C-alpha cells in the first residue's frame, strides 16, 4: 500500500525555484478547496457542536433549552448502572470482532481457493451478490429465514433431525445470529480486496516454493499470507472501523436490540437515546466514547502489523 505517516510526503522540489514553490503552495490549497469546504460544513462544525452537546442535557430542537451539565453524561455512561458497559459495550465488541474476523478468515480461504479454480469469475460473482443488496433487504430476508415456525433454516435443521433453534428469540444466540448475517453480507468486499491482492502476487513466487517442495498449506502460509499483509491490514482496519459503529443491521433485524438488551450495541443505543428518549447529550457523549474505542483498536492494529513487518502501510 506504500503508506507511511512519517515519510516526507511532498515530492522533493529542486532548490532555487522559489517562485514555483509559492505558486504551488497556493495551488495546493485550491486543489484542496472542495474537500475543505465540505469538511468544514459537514464535519468540523458538526464535530464541535456534538462535542459541546456531550456536556449538556438537551431534548432535541429548541436551542434555548440546552442545559450545561459538565461531565455528567460521561460519568453516567461508566458509573450510572444503565447497562451501557455490560451488555451494550461488550455486545459492540463481540459484534465487531465476530463479524470482522470470521468474514475475514472465510474470505481469505475462499479467495485463495477461487484463484485455483476454473470459472473463477462465476464463483467470485456469487460471493459478491450480498454486497450490492441493501441492508434492509438483507435483514428482512434473514429474519424470514430464521423464523422458528416456518423459516428455511429451521425446517432444514428439522429435516436433518435437529431441534428448532430460536435464532432471534434466544438471548444467548440472537447476537451470534446477527453476526452470521453480517459475515454473510460482508464477505464479498473482503474477497474483492483480498483477491486483488492475491492477483498481484507473481506466479514465480509460488513456482519457486513448489520446487522447494512446499505443500499447498505451506504455500498458503509461507508465501501467500506474508505477501498479502497490506491487503489484510486494509480489510481489518476498515472492517473494524465500520463494524464498531454499525447498527443498521441490528435496527432492521431486531428493531430495538432485543430480546432484552442481548443485541443492543452502542450505535443503536445512541440512536435510541436521541430519537426515542430525547437525550441528545448522552447520545453525543456515547459517540465520543465510541470514537476513542475505534481509535485505540485501530492504533493497536497498526502497531501489531508494523512489528510484524509491514513497514509501510
Amino acid at each position: 500500500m506504500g503508506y507511511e505517516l512519517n515519510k516526507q510526503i511532498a515530492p522533493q522540489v529542486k532548490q532555487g525555484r522559489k517562485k514555483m514553490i509559492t505558486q504551488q503552495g497556493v495551488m495546493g490549497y485550491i486543489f484542496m478547496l472542495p474537500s475543505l469546504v465540505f469538511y468544514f460544513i459537514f464535519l468540523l462544525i458538526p464535530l464541535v457542536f456534538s462535542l459541546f452537546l456531550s456536556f449538556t442535557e438537551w431534548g432535541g430542537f429548541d436551542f434555548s433549552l440546552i442545559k450545561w451539565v459538565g461531565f455528567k453524561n460521561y460519568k453516567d455512561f461508566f458509573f450510572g448502572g444503565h447497562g451501557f458497559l455490560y451488555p451494550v459495550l461488550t455486545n459492540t465488541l463481540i459484534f465487531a470482532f465476530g463479524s470482522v474476523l470470521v468474514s475475514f478468515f472465510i474470505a481469505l480461504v475462499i479467495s485463495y481457493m477461487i484463484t485455483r479454480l476454473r470459472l473463477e469469475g462465476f464463483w467470485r460473482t456469487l460471493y459478491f451478490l450480498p454486497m450490492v443488496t441493501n441492508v434492509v433487504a438483507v435483514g428482512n430476508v434473514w429474519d424470514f429465514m430464521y423464523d422458528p415456525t416456518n423459516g428455511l433454516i429451521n425446517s432444514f435443521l428439522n429435516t436433518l433431525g435437529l431441534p428448532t433453534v430460536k435464532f432471534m428469540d434466544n438471548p444467548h444466540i440472537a447476537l451470534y445470529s446477527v453476526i452470521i448475517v453480517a459475515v454473510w453480507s460482508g464477505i464479498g468486499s473482503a474477497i474483492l480486496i483480498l483477491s486483488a491482492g492475491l492477483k498481484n502476487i507473481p506466479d514465480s513466487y509460488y513456482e519457486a516454493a513448489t520446487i522447494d517442495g512446499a505443500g499447498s498449506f505451506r504455500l498458503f502460509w509461507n508465501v501467500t499470507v506474508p505477501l498479502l499483509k497490506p491487503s489484510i491490514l486494509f480489510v481489518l482496519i476498515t472492517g473494524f472501523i465500520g463494524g464498531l459503529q454499525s447498527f443498521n443491521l441490528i435496527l432492521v433485524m431486531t428493531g430495538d436490540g432485543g430480546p432484552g438488551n442481548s443485541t443492543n450495541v452502542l450505535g443503536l443505543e445512541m440512536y435510541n437515546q436521541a430519537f426515542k428518549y430525547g437525550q441528545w447529550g448522552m447520545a453525543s457523549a456515547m459517540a465520543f466514547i465510541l470514537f476513542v474505542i475505534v481509535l485505540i483498536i485501530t492504533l493497536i492494529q497498526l502497531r501489531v502489523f508494523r512489528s510484524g513487518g509491514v513497514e509501510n502501510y
Partner: protein
Amino acid sequence: MKKKLISITVMIILIFALSACGSSKDSGGKDGKVTLTLLTHYSAQQEDELMKYIKMWNKENPNIQVKHKSVNFDNLLSTVMAQQTSGQSSDIVHVYSLWGGQLNQSHVLATPPKDVTDDIKSNYPDAAIKSSSVNGNLLGYPSEIETYALFYNKKLLKEAGYDSPPKTWDEMYEMSEKLTKKDSKGKIKQEGFGLLSGWDSAVVHPYLSLLYTNGGNFLSSNHKQAELNSPEAQQTFDYEMKFINSGITDRSFDAQKGFANEDVAMTINAGWWLGSLKTTMKDKFKDVAVAPIPSPDGNGQGSISYGYFYGVNNQSKHKEEAWKFLKWLNSKELDNGATGESQFLVSQGIIPTRNSDIKALSKELSDPNYKPFINALDFAKPEPNIFAGQKIKTDLQKQIEQVWSKQTSVKNGLNNANKVINQELK
C-alpha cells in the same frame, strides 16, 4: 483543457441546482387561504375513512384547508421531533399519550384556548383527560383511549369443553394447560395462552394490567418512585412465568399472528386489535370474544390505559385555525349525533371517548366485545406520561424480556427494573 474541467464542474453544479428547483412546497397564506397539515400514524386504509370528515370540513371551510400526512407509528415521534428541528412542523399532530411529557418539555405543543379546554373537561371521561394532560395541563383533544382485556377463541374453548372464559388466575392457567397442543416432537401446534411480543407495549402492558388486577402498582402516585419490588409485582411475574416454564406459552410463537390463525386460544391485548382481527380473520372473526382480565381471586379489576390526542404545534403560524378545525372534528355533532372523529374511530373498530359519542353510537357499540374495554375505562390506570415515560417503559420491557428468556430471575429482573427506573425518575 482547463476550460473543459471548468465546464464539466459547472455542468454538474447546474444539474443538481436544476434538480433542486424541482420540488417546492406550497405554504399558502397569501390570499387569506390557510393550509393546515395534520400528521398521524394512520395506515392507508384508515386514512380513507378519516379523509371523509376532513373533506367535509374542507368543503365547508374553503379558507382553511386541511391536508393529511401519515408516517408509521415507529417513526411518529422521531418525525415530530425532526420536523420541529427543521421548522417544517405539521400544524396539527396526533400523538401517543406517553410522549406528552417529552413533547411538553421540548415546547412542541401549544396550549389550547379556553373554549377547547372547557369543552374537553366537561365532555370526556377522566381517563381520557388525564392521558392528554401533563402536570394537570391539557395538551389537546383526546382521540382514542385504549384499555386491555382478555381475547379468547370461543371455538377453541368449546373444543376443550369450556363455555365461558376464565375469571381467576388459577382458572386461566388450568384452561390454558388443557388448550395447549403439541406434536410428537414437542413443537407447539396450539398455544393455550399467548404472550405478545415484538414492541414495548406488547411486553409491558399485559404485565402491568395483570399487576393491577393483583392490587399492585407500577409507580407511586406522585410518579417519583417505582413500586416493582412489591410482593404483588413478584407474584404477578411468577404467574406469567408459570406459563412459560410449563411450556404452555412459547415465546417464539407469534401470538398475534397465531391468534388470528386460530392457533392461540387466549391472549391479553388492547381494544384496537378487534378492528384488525376483523379484517384479517374474516368469517372466523365470529369466534373471537373478549372478557375482563382475570384477577387472582376473581374479584379484582385491572387494566392499563393509554391513548392518543390531537395537539397543535407551537411553531404553527395558524394555531387559531388549527384549534377551530380540531374543535369541529371532535365536538361538532353530525347527522346521527356523533362527531366525525368518533365515526372514524368506530369504523376502525376503536371505541370513541367523548361521552356524547358513546351514547349516540350506542347501537354501533352494542357488540358485547366492546363492553369489557368500555367498562375498563372506569378503573384503568393511565400510562404515566412523564418526561422519562418512554425511557422507563423501555427499561421495564428489557427487564421483562430478560426474565422471560431466563437470563435472570424474576426477583432480580424486577429489582433491576426498579433500580433503573428510580434513577430516571430522579
